[in-house]
């Protein structure tokens, strides 16, 4: 079991993969409890409608139906769905009922629930529930929704919520003195996270113990446990939430009303109740993301030095203020200064309720939108000034730094080396040659484009630089049993990222043992007492550090114990490759397992030492980490059809110290692919009445393997000064960087035709139209 080689830094094979590849995973759908009944949801077909009455009588008489309930039946007996506390902004979010009571506020909002003894019976009975709606005019577009005369989503309050401002220097003056200003209205369109496994839950109420167990496909089982306890009026120790294998999260699998409804149904009937969303249900009712309309103004002097940035950011919340979404809109604006030194900055952020599906975080969580603004702005400035896109960036990067530093946007970056990242990707892509190839292609009448984007992404939350009350910890517990086997209990909830593997690497290194001797347990609140979960590029930073600290506490205790056992000075004990050595007499050693066993024996321990080896850590980082990178995309555009052929994406990511080189490559591939989805394919298309027009994968395009480019991936490692691992978050960086690189490449390809901007997604028709418009 002993090993001298450090595991951190090695491409240890993912321990998660074998069972998944062999089809031995257990997702919620796979979990079977005898006597389970099925739940089906009746959802509003209207974006905005008063509910006059609901007739459930026919459904109640349908074969196999055991329960039907509506909003009136459960409210106010049970609590409401969590919304984000907005005290920091002096705001209060509108209540979010689990089932709409008087009004439905978006297509897909739950208006009734039916439970039957079979899945089919429940679905059939849902068609027998008759809801008398009075359709109301809907607020769909956020810009219109923010006007005074817009229909109100919540009758008792205006649609506008949170008006956040930030100012540095004097932007108006900067604009007056600027050599060049670029102004553009830019939409970061609403998109979906589309995890392969749709949402699913199985609730099991034990009427004797009065405890609730819920299997749910979520990223944050502990948060869901705490919210359910509140909604159901139970103590949190009476609620157990298990996130078994989770088929993708990407930020969209959190506390949704459906889970509470499952619990309520199970409590009511005293039987297990299950629900698995259809893909269309997920499109209609799982949160969507991005949804920002922004007004960008950015100026530079004649040398291309940025002088001022003004961003007006209008964020569409959807019908309810779900998750951390409203405050993410502020973070989104803040990051729009990018990795650049901008002396004058002005942000205005407004959030508006609309009659659309609530918005929430999705891989990138506000930052791709902010980065897209500055990265589009820089390319526009470069073309006005006749500079190469790499050159204008080079002239504006923040200089290298290795200690926390506040940016013009208000973020406190931990460390960075941005120009080096550009140099690396230029070399990786043979940038000069690419430009020569482009000249050649143009001479042949082909439309090749090269797009550059530098980006930065928060991770490891951590204390928010905007709203300190949103700070989060992570919990880890390390236990060594009598045989010397190590178990990590982590509050992180890995669901595809490789967390089990990398946490084991970290813990094994603390003891100098093999990672095979480290078991990692997670995702079950009965096994893991505390936790926050996996989202926001936080797992390695917070989960990894809490694991490391807990392991170090155990190690220190073992050092003390072994010193006692050997009669060695505690200061002279070391742990080398899993063996305790007294450095003053190297002959004397004790194997790991023997020390572990001794910790449970009365006579082997010092009298004042507690039994056992079991330590924990609530770790809160002192600041956020900021991973960064520069990407270069190469495209060729068919100008007759508008089709974009994304040929290659060169990526340089810097995420601090790399724990497992293989898993970070996977994160780049997956993250960049989702970013490409936003750039080229994805959009939630609402019509003016609030119908979602593409609520299935037949109409909503996500990139499949054959739609991804060749990835040429490289890394740099600028350690974070904030934690002893030197790590930063990384999973969301590629999703943040890829969209702008791709869009910039397409605009670059078409610039000889007079195209200066295209809104995402760059569908063939949009590209074709941009060419038509530019050609007049």
């Amino acid at each position: 079991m002993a090993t001298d080689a450090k595991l951190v830094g090695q491409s240890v094979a993912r321990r998660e993969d074998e069972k998944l590849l062999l089809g031995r995973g257990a997702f919620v759908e796979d979990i079977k409890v005898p006597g389970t009944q099925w739940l089906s949801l009746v959802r509003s077909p209207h974006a905005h409608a008063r509910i006059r009455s609901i007739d459930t009588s026919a459904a109640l008489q349908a074969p196999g139906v055991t329960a039907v309930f509506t909003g009136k039946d459960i409210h106010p007996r049970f609590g409401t769905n969590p919304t984000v506390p907005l005290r920091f902004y002096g705001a209060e979010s509108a209540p979010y009922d689990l089932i709409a009571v008087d009004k439905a506020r978006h297509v897909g909002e739950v208006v009734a629930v039916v439970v039957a003894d079979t899945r089919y019976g429940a679905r059939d009975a849902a068609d027998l529930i008759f809801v008398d709606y009075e359709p109301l005019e809907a607020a769909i577009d956020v810009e219109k929704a923010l006007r005074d005369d817009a229909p109100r989503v919540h009758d008792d309050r205006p649609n506008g919520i949170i008006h956040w401002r930030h100012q540095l220097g004097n932007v108006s003056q900067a604009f007056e003195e600027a050599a060049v200003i670029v102004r553009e209205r830019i939409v970061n369109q609403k998109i979906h996270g589309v995890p392969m496994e749709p949402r699913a839950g199985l609730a099991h109420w034990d009427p004797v113990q009065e405890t609730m167990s819920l299997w749910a496909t979520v990223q944050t089982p502990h948060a869901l446990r705490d919210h359910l306890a509140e909604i159901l009026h139970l103590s949190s120790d009476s609620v157990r939430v298990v996130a078994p294998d989770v088929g993708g999260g990407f930020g969209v699998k959190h506390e949704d009303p459906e889970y509470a409804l499952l619990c309520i149904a199970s409590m009511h009937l005293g039987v297990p109740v299950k629900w698995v969303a259809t893909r269309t249900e997920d499109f209609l009712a799982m949160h969507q993301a991005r949804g920002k309309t922004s007004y960008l103004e950015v100026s530079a002097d004649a040398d291309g030095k940025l002088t001022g940035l003004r961003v007006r950011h209008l964020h569409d919340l959807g019908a309810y203020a779900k998750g951390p979404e409203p405050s993410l809109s502020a973070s989104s604006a803040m990051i729009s200064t990018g990795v650049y030194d901008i002396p004058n900055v002005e942000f205005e952020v407004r959030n508006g309720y609309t009659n659309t599906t609530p918005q929430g975080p999705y891989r990138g969580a506000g930052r791709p939108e902010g980065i897209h603004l500055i990265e589009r702005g820089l390319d526009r400035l470069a073309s006005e000034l006749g500079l190469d896109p790499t050159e204008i960036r080079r002239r504006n990067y923040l200089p290298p730094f290795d200690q926390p530093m506040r940016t013009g946007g208000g973020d406190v970056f931990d460390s960075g080396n941005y120009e080096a990242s550009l140099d690396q990707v230029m070399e990786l892509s043979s940038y000069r040659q690419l430009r020569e190839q482009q000249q050649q292609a143009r001479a042949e009448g082909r439309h090749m484009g090269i797009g550059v984007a530098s980006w930065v992404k928060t991770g490891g939350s951590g204390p928010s630089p905007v709203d300190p009350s949103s700070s989060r910890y992570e919990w880890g517990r390390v236990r060594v049993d009598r045989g010397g086997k190590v178990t990590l209990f982590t509050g992180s909830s890995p669901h595809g990222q490789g967390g089990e593997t990398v946490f084991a690497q970290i813990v094994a290194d603390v003891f100098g043992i093999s990672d095979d001797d480290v078991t990692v347990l997670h995702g079950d609140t009965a096994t893991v007492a505390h936790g926050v979960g996996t989202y926001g590029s936080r797992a390695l930073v917070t989960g990894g550090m809490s694991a490391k600290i807990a392991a170090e506490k155990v190690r220190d205790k073992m050092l003390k114990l072994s010193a006692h056992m050997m009669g060695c000075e505690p200061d002279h004990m070391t742990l080398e490759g899993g063996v305790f050595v007294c450095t003053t007499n190297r002959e004397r050693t004790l194997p790991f397992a023997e020390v572990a066993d001794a910790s449970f024996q009365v006579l082997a321990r010092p009298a004042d030492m507690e039994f056992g080896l079991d330590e924990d850590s609530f770790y809160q980082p002192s600041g956020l980490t900021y991973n960064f990178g520069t990407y270069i995309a190469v495209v060729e555009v068919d100008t007759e059809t508008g089709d974009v052929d994304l040929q290659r994406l060169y990526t340089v990511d810097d995420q601090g110290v790399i724990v497992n080189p293989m898993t970070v490559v996977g994160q780049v591939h997956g993250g960049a692919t989702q970013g490409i989805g936003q750039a080229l394919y994805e959009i939630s298309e609402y019509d003016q009445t609030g119908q979602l027009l593409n609520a299935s994968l037949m109409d909503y395009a996500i990139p499949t393997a054959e739609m991804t480019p060749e990835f040429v991936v490289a890394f740099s490692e600028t350690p974070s000064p904030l934690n002893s691992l030197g790590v930063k978050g990384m999973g969301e960086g590629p999703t943040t960087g890829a969209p702008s690189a791709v869009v910039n490449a397409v605009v670059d390809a078409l610039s000889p035709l007079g195209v200066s901007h295209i809104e995402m997604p760059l569908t063939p028709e949009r590209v074709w139209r941009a060419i038509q418009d530019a050609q007049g």
Partner: protein
Amino acid sequence: MIPGAFDYAAPDTVAAAILLLRERPGEGKVIAGGQSLLPMMKLRVAMPGLIVDLRKTRGELSHISNDGSNLRIGSMTSHAHVAGSDVVQDTLPVLAETAAEIADVQVRNLGTIGGSIAHADPVADYPATLLALDAQAEIAGLNGVRVVSVDELIMDAFISTLAEDEIITEIVIPITEGRTGAAYIKFANKASHFAIVGVAAHVVLDDSGYLSRVAVGITGAASRAARATAVEDTLRGQVPTPDAISAASALAADGLECIADLHGSPEYRQNLCRVLTRRAITRAVERARE
């Protein structure tokens, strides 16, 4: 995605299937590969009371043969089978090219040529090519077999001229001799990969290099697949120079009422008709000259 309740039968013969359909007027639906019917049932857009599964009739209905002047493809022949068939490759390779463009491997393994035609999806691929090749369908009913052109079989979006109790048994496609070439070019939407517009062109060159036949079938653009007669009339009897092809292709959308959906406006579809028609004819001519 849970369909409503239905009865199910899997008869051994086409004749038995027809009788079953006859017994339950207004309720029965045959299922072939299920690749169009099942999605509609799961969305509860279709809620047939009886499903008549043709899977046991594959012996009768799944085959590909060359009778000397026609290629004959049984209606239950899968897209994968057509795409990989040597007989098709030797006679009308454009059909294999078309079949290979349909959906993905899983769908191609199950979906059938008969189902595709019967379903009359305005964005399906086969109709463009089958129209360009003057294909016919053999249809079995209570009163025996009738033969109609695919053009007559497809009426409008999702509407065919099939009676409720009729079953397509075979697709019959004339094989042209001489200097002939054909091509199918599809511009797929990025979600389902169905065609936004797909164009099939079939040409025959006479000994002096003039076009003695030019046929263009367009799918996806309008509520049903159609022949681009204006293009054909302009080009027939001409030498297919790039300029002549371009000029004729500019008429590709004439007479088409182009539809609007999430993947393309009418103007965009018109543009695709013109661009893809030019590309398809150009490729067909190149192949004819090879």
